[in-house]
């Protein structure tokens, strides 16, 4: 578990490069900063300044080393590294509202962009004219698209939106790829086809995530609930309402374990073993032991003078993050067995969580 603070500004989004030596973040502004890891410190090496609006999404394609960014200025840019400088290429997304989220597909030949224009823009590169084109998925979305995730087959796209629905669409573009084979979600997949539409999410769907095999889809919604839809069990949906504040980001760390984090400032682990079997496992955080050590007389009087208090008061939260966590990202390990994941939050900090520690702790508990 390690925390690194990138300043006081909230971190809207983050993305890692392939070998995790560089991180692209946006400090709630229209600029993307790329930091390089040097020992224990991070040093800024690039600044991507093409957007005029607040950056809402960054995704870094590991193999092709391209970054896609989207912002509230209704634009998206694809950045490529040329001679040590990141050069932007405008993408014609044709939206008339802010872009909210962006994700490269697994094969990195296209990306999906969610927007407040009630549509998803699936963009691909057209070699003939040397530009990025987009195709829109509009029906039946009724409000802002808040989150996107791709299925491992590079065709299906899950979208959570503010119209309280969670849907899976087909983003099959016949110009650039072959016809997909059938999946447990369905077999007919023309572009824009809806393979799952769950209407009773109970709140805005903040984040969606496919399981490593793609057979299950987890999402978190604003009614403080986490839900999982299982394709192999007739697309049956299991919802677990929690007693915490709403979760904002969800991530599958293995075929059955899910980690979610949000306004409670710390990640929680859940386990899905089948329909009706979604349960809370534990809080993924080491609680800070409040150090009520001996205060020197000087500190005592200083407290009395400055804050008019006689005892040492804990004004920080017990969790590592001091404000809501906005995004979780896999750091190490394959999707099916994530060993480390990262979180960024409104407190400007990025925390790396070590799951290996927890796997081994779990084993110890079971041996007893």
């Amino acid at each position, binding site marked *: 578990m390690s925390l690194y603070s990138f300043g006081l500004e909230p971190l809207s989004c983050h993305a890692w490069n392939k070998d995790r030596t560089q991180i692209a973040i946006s400090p709630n502004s229209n600029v993307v900063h790329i930091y390089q890891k040097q020992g224990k410190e991070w040093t800024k090496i690039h600044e991507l300044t093409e957007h005029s609006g607040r950056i809402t999404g960054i995704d870094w394609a590991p193999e092709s080393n391209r970054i896609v960014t989207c912002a509230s200025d209704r634009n998206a840019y694809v950045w490529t590294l040329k001679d040590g400088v990141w050069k932007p290429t405008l993408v014609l997304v044709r939206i008339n509202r802010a872009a909210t989220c962006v994700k490269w597909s697994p094969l990195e030949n296209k990306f999906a962009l969610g927007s407040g224009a009630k549509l998803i823009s699936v963009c691909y590169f057209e070699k003939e004219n040397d530009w990025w084109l987009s195709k829109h998925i509009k029906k039946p979305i009724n409000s802002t698209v808040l989150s996107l995730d791709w299925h491992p087959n590079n065709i299906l796209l899950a979208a959570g939106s503010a119209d309280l629905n969670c849907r899976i669409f087909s983003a099959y573009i016949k110009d650039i790829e072959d016809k997909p084979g059938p999946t447990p979600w369905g077999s007919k997949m023309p572009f824009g086809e809806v393979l799952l539409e769950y209407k009773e999410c109970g709140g805005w769907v903040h984040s969606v995530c496919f399981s490593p095999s793609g057979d299950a889809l987890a999402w978190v919604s604003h009614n403080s609930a986490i839900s999982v839809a299982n394709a192999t069990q007739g697309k049956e949906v299991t919802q677990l309402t929690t007693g*915490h504040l709403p979760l904002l980001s969800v991530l599958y760390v293995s075929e059955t374990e899910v980690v979610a984090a949000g306004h409670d400032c710390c990640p929680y682990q859940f386990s899905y073993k089948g329909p009706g079997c979604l349960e809370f496992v534990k809080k993924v955080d080491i609680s800070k032991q409040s150090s009520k050590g001996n205060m020197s007389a000087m500190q005592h009087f200083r407290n009395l003078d400055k804050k008019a208090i006689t005892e040492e008061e804990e004004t920080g939260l017990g969790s590592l993050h001091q404000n809501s966590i906005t995004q979780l990202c896999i750091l190490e390990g394959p999707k099916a067995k994530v060993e480390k994941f990262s979180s960024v939050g409104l407190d400007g900090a990025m925390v790396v969580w070590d799951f290996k520690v927890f796997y081994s702790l779990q084993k110890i508990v079971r041996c007893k």
Partner: protein
Amino acid sequence: MSKNTVSDRFRKVDVDEYDENKFVDEEEGGENQLGPDEAEVDSLIRQGNLMGALQAVLKNPPINTKNQNVKDRAEGLVLKVLSSFKSTDIEKGVQSLDKNGVDLLMKYIYKGFEQPSENNSAVLLQWHEKALSAGGVGCIVRVLTARKTV
């Protein structure tokens, strides 16, 4: 400055009504929802079976109906049951409910807060405290995010 003599009635028009893409909630048949059974609940209260009365009054919540009378009657009934509990029994009452029951109870409690009166505020606050420790803040979030409520 010249006075505007033209009618300004246009300012009172609700433009959202004319929006073709206006978001409408799914209409679900709420005609059959009549709320908790008054007779059953009353008899349970008279018998002194307050736990049973609590379970009974939380059945058939008038969530989908548009009939305000049904909703008001249900709320009144729930308040009657909540007020008849002794302070020390409130915790046990909350423990006897499942997750959905606690969520529903919290919805009724907040509905009751909307019309505070001499009698019910204190009682509702006591129930609120116990329901909060059982359901957590998530329970209150669900009261706020529910589009169809009691």
